[in-house]
């Protein structure tokens, strides 16, 4: 599994409000990219645009050379784009199995494909397999995050987008989630993580793209964490870089 997600000249936002201004970058399979930036920079808007929830006014989003723009969400999901939305986007009163099944059917998977996807998710996160008949609202925050990631893995995506996966997680669980993201990238996937706790996310990242006011202001590799203090100082606050 080695793919390429190419975003070129995306301009878009919400109605008349332009949030993204000519955003371009490409990510290859096996890379874990951290998309950072202050609140309102356009990180979530960009993920929503890639996933198809928002229509850009200009630009293109290509997966392995195939244009995604104009396709409905379920087509993009089946083509290999998976999203773990901000706040996890789960259905609390449904069981874990029902959550996975609903997502599989939303992606228009056939019944046997859906079951295959659920097996894939439970293989990636065995704890999900033990909780299949449990309601999601009864799970811990970490387990819920695993269900959300597992749900995004139903279609065996080549691109995995995670929006603020650290939200509501204890540090130890958050580090486990990061290690999982690294493992998924090492399997050849494109993994894009939007994160506010950026210094911790950069620990496992290959690259970091920083958005400010809807523009890419930095795009570079993360070499053994050497640039972390510089990044933090430049784009967030000098205080955050201090040990």
């Amino acid at each position, binding site marked *: 599994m080695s793919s390429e997600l190419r975003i070129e000249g995306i301009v878009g936002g919400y109605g008349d409000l332009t949030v993204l201004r000519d955003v371009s970058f490409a990510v290859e399979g096996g890379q874990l990219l951290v998309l950072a930036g202050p609140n309102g920079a356009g990180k979530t808007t960009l993920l929503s645009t890639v*996933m*198809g*929830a928002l229509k850009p006014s200009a630009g293109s989003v290509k997966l392995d050379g195939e244009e995604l723009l104009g396709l*409905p*969400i*379920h087509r993009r*999901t089946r083509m290999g784009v998976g*999203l773990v*939305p901000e706040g996890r*986007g*789960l*259905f*609390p*009163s*449904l069981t874990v199995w*029902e*959550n996975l*099944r*609903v*997502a599989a*059917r*939303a*992606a228009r998977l056939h019944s046997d494909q859906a079951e295959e996807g659920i097996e894939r998710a439970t293989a990636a996160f065995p704890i999900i397999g033990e909780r299949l008949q449990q309601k999601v609202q009864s799970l*811990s*925050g*970490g387990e819920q995050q695993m269900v959300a990631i597992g749900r995004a893995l139903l279609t065996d995506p080549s691109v995995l987008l995670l929006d603020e996966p650290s939200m*509501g*997680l*204890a540090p130890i*669980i958050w580090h486990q989630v990061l290690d999982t993201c690294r493992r998924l990238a090492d399997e050849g996937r494109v993994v894009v993580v939007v994160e506010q706790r950026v210094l911790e996310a950069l620990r496992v990242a290959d690259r970091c793209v920083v958005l400010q006011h809807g523009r890419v202001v930095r795009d570079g590799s993360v070499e053994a964490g050497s640039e972390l203090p510089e990044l933090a100082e430049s784009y967030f606050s000098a205080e955050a870089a201090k040990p």
Partner: protein
Amino acid sequence: MIDFLQTTEGVVTAAAAYLLIGLGWNLVYNTCGYLNLAMGTFYILGAVFSWKLEAAGHIHSPFILVVLVCAAVGAIGFAAERLLLRRLGGNALNALIVTIGLNLMLLQLAMKLSPATVIRPELFISGGISPGGVHISYQELIVWATAAAVTAGLFVFFTRTDLGRTMRACTDNRPAAEGLGIKVPTLATIAFTVSAILAALAAFVVAPTQGSAYNSGDLIAIKAFMAVSIVGLGRNGGAIFGAFLVAAVEGYVARYWNPEISNIVVLSGFLVVLYVYAVRSTGGRFVPSWMRIRRRPTAPQGV
């Protein structure tokens, strides 16, 4: 004792009717996120169409009649949702106002189609059984069986089918459902249409037992609304309990106290339900400060 059991038999029939309409209330509320205030008129249209088709005299099979009546009322529900309600983009208050207007429009239609003050479609089958001296007509047994079958059918639909699970998912987290690419407006159309069909089905089986005036639908719908909101709007399990409670209060008050005040007692209960909802939705602003429940601060979310 026989008298009590006979009254109870009437209570069960009324509960079955409230349950059928109440499940329609729940279906729309859960999937569309608003209340359909035209439910009572959908019920009356079901009764009127049954009566009209019977009066035309060409169709005698109740099985064909029920399909035609449900299809006609369902088509009105479908058109109302597609042409009026879908355009509101999920705004619950606007939808509520539109369903009030829809109710008034359909009421005029029911009035035009209903020449008699009270219409009473013919019984499918006359006669009945008398276990222990309690008379139960076959038509009432059909009402009970319909309510039981619809309740069980909806339970199976919501827990065993992909469409049902998807509808529950929309109730739980509509933005997340939309984010997955689920076509929530299509589900809303299905829910609204099915709720209209349920009201028509209720009328088709219940109207022959008691008769209906063209303007009596709102009272039945309000009682059904009470039934589903006592335990909590949107909960089908609670609707069963609520339907029996409302029917029991109505039936026993009418039989053992005063038939003229049974509706007043039931509607007083409706005011209590509305008051509780108002208290809940405003965080207790309608309640004197000394009566307010002091809530402990909740623990921060996390693992």
